[in-house]
């Protein structure tokens, strides 16, 4: 802040009231708040006048009105043309979350592969990863979405003549038909077995850690957990008489029958989002690994720790510290970028709510406010979660 021109010595300095930093600070803030309040007041009153003139009732009553348009993709939320606009919001939110989570999943896997590949001493792999990064990041995401959806996926064969992926289902221009799990009675036990296995793994890792701290003895937690998580549901599956079967889609002249259909809009968006974000994640991973000095590895080797545990216990935990904050940003970017779905009519939040609903109801302020606040809430929640995770991983400095 401002530095007052104070004479040295002689008690309290005599300062003009406007040059007193406190007074000046207060004055600036009051003026600023007044200006902003005036601006907001002007905007609100203008909006009220304009809305009244256009004959649009404000308020959130429209959420209970029947929407009257169909949405083809809604995996979890019940939706039909007679559903309300409030339901449309839920469907949009659901689709946004589904594409974001799927995108984050694949982008993380591909990104880690790319990041490690760029550091590989294998020349071809390193150059290939480099070319991947340079090509992906220098072309706009929207163009990628168009390329995947309008060009590449359109090259797939027609409905009646799908590509047969064997046990993985069928692929044609109308989408990917995955095998669908059919549950018979007793299938619930498998789910219960899975939950029990996961809980048991947590308890086991807790116990193993305490035992190691107390006695120094180690326990193969990872493999035991894997065995439990895979084994218990399998045992339950056979004990209950194999109640789960997979229904494979079958090709027919009018398109595949049966199976779970995944729409090309989803596939195109997923491909574009995860491949595009993966290049940023790859760079983050590379930077994270490079940030750990080689001395750490050498020191671990000097202590007699073998390569595997060195990587797992020394390098990766430290690299994660560098990786997590920018990785969070990329996850958020992916979530926000999923709003480009509107360009290819994948029914995400922006497409069905800020698009169709806004056009039909004209409730621009309410609809956009809801949409923006939803994204803001997702952003803030993810940030909080990742900050918490980051704080757990962070270096404890003394």
């Amino acid at each position, binding site marked *: *802040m*401002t*530095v007052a*021109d104070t004479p040295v010595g002689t008690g309290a300095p005599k300062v*003009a*009231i*406007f*040059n007193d930093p406190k007074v*000046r*600070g207060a004055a*600036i*803030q009051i003026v*600023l*708040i007044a200006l902003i309040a005036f601006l907001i007041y*002007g*905007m609100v009153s*203008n*909006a009220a*006048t*304009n*809305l009244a*003139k256009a004959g649009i009732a404000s308020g959130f009553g429209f959420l209970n009105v029947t929407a009257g348009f169909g949405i083809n993709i809604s995996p979890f939320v019940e939706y039909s043309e007679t559903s309300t606009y409030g339901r449309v919001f839920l469907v949009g939110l659901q689709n946004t979350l589904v594409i974001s989570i799927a995108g984050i999943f694949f982008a993380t896997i591909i990104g880690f592969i790319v990041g490690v590949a760029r550091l590989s*001493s*294998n*020349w*071809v*792999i390193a150059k*290939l990863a480099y070319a991947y990064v*340079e*090509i992906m*990041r*220098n*072309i*706009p*995401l*929207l*163009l990628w979405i*168009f*390329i995947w959806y*309008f*060009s590449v996926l*359109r090259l797939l064969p027609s409905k009646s003549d799908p590509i047969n992926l064997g046990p993985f289902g069928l692929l044609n221009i109308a989408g990917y038909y995955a095998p669908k799990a059919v549950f018979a009675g007793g299938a619930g036990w498998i789910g219960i077995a899975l939950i029990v296995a996961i809980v048991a793994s947590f308890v086991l890792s807790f116990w193993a850690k305490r035992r190691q701290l107390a006695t120094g003895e180690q326990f193969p937690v990872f493999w035991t957990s894997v065995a439990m998580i895979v084994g218990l549901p399998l045992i339950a599956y056979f004990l209950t008489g194999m109640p789960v079967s997979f229904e494979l889609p079958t090709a027919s002249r009018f398109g595949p029958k049966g199976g779970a259909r995944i729409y090309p809009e989803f596939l195109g968006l997923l491909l574009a989002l995860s491949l595009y974000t993966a290049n940023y994640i790859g760079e983050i991973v590379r930077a994270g690994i490079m940030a750990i000095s080689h001395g750490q590895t050498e020191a671990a080797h000097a202590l007699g720790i073998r390569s595997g545990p060195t990587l797992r216990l020394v390098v990766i935990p430290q690299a994660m510290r560098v990786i997590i904050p920018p990785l969070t940003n990329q996850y958020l970017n992916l979530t*926000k*970028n999923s*709003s*480009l779905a*509107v*360009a290819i009519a994948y029914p995400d939040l*922006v497409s069905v709510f*800020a698009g169709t609903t*806004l056009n039909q109801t004209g409730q*621009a*302020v309410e609809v*956009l406010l809801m*949409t*923006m606040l939803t*994204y*803001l809430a997702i*952003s*803030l929640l993810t940030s909080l979660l990742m900050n918490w995770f980051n704080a757990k991983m962070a270096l404890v400095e003394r």
Partner: protein
Amino acid sequence: MANSTSSSAAETAFVRSDMVPSQAPPASEVGVIGWMRKNLFSSIPYTILTLFSLYLIWLVVPPLLEFGLFNAVWSGSDREACTTAAQGGIQSDGWVGACWPYIGSYLNQFIYGRYPIDQYWRVNAVFALFAVGLVPVLIPRVPYKGLNVLYLFGVFPVASFILLTGGNITLDGFLLPDAIMAPSFVKFIIDYLVLTAVVCLIGYAIARGTEAPVAPMIRNILIAMGVLLVILLLFATNFGLESVTTDQWGGLLVTLVIAVTGIVASLPIGIVLALGRRSQLPAVRLLSVVFIEFWRGVPLITVLFMSSVMLPLFLPEGVSFDKLLRALIGVALFAAAYMAEVVRGGIQALPKGQYEGAMAVGLSYWQMMQFIILPQALKLVIPGIVGSFIALFKDTTLVLIIGLFDFLGMIQSSYSDPTWASPVQSLTGYLFAALVYWAFCFAMSRYSLYMESRLDTSRR
């Protein structure tokens, strides 16, 4: 041996007198083969990975080259050249290749949009003026950076506004109610004088209140208002240029206008926000944080929807913005929030001693920022600014969703033309778009890397 002298060496014939010349390393360790053994086939998993990568390359590169170069059509006048016989063209069955004559015939539209053809020179002049200003700024050795920046941020925007729109806007007053005086140019001048007087009065009050000298304050205000008036009068002057409304703009022109305006507008706003976020005043800090986090937390597309649908609602009756201008406002606010974080990074990177030093020599807050902090901080974040410009350049494609025709938008809209309709049309268009965007972004990112290594004094 070590103890054998030269005389005894001659007698004992079995002792060597000179070193065995070193043999050439085995062929498997040097040259191409050695390099391949070391870098490609050092172990079995590596060999498998190498072969897999080569397979991936083989899967992607030859078909792409075949499509773009070897099978491509290079001349033709309509869709016949780019369709197979079954589709009504001249190509043999099963042919797939790029249709470059389609790009050629549309190239002008991809660059200028629907700008009147006889007025293309105006757009070209703007591109030239931009290049003339930008190139010397980018080359660190060229002197007169200050004048150059003044040209780029002062003269160039005014000139390009007049060139692109045709200028000749009507100034008919803005302050006094119409009841007192009918809108006219004279009323504008009176309004402007009234406004100047009011601003001078506020400046005078502040100067008196803070016991600062009054004369320089009033002089600065008068200079600023005078420059603004000259610019406004230039906008109002009739240069004899045909008026071109923004709905006729399109293509690369719109892409560049949005990206450049966005970055130029976001820089000052971003600096102010970054300073606000670091301020000691709680209200200023809170407002800055809320502003920044809000824009950073929402997707750009919702911002564009907001500026195109919601912004008109917030304006008083009778005031309406052009569609392009609305998008520009949205983009500028959005970019400003990101710019603020970039600038904040630079400000935070400066050691505390810089602040303390500045305060110790008795600089005021603004003097400290202007002369000590910002010059260093902004220099530090040049790569970051280029980075946000690249991001913004890519993000401009989103304006096609709200119905503006940027470069990608023009390509999309050209698909509806039946003259060139063919199955390869969209692939060709996207390939071309990808090449153009890639060239722009790659060049910028290389420049950013170059600046980064130039500015990086820590590792030398």
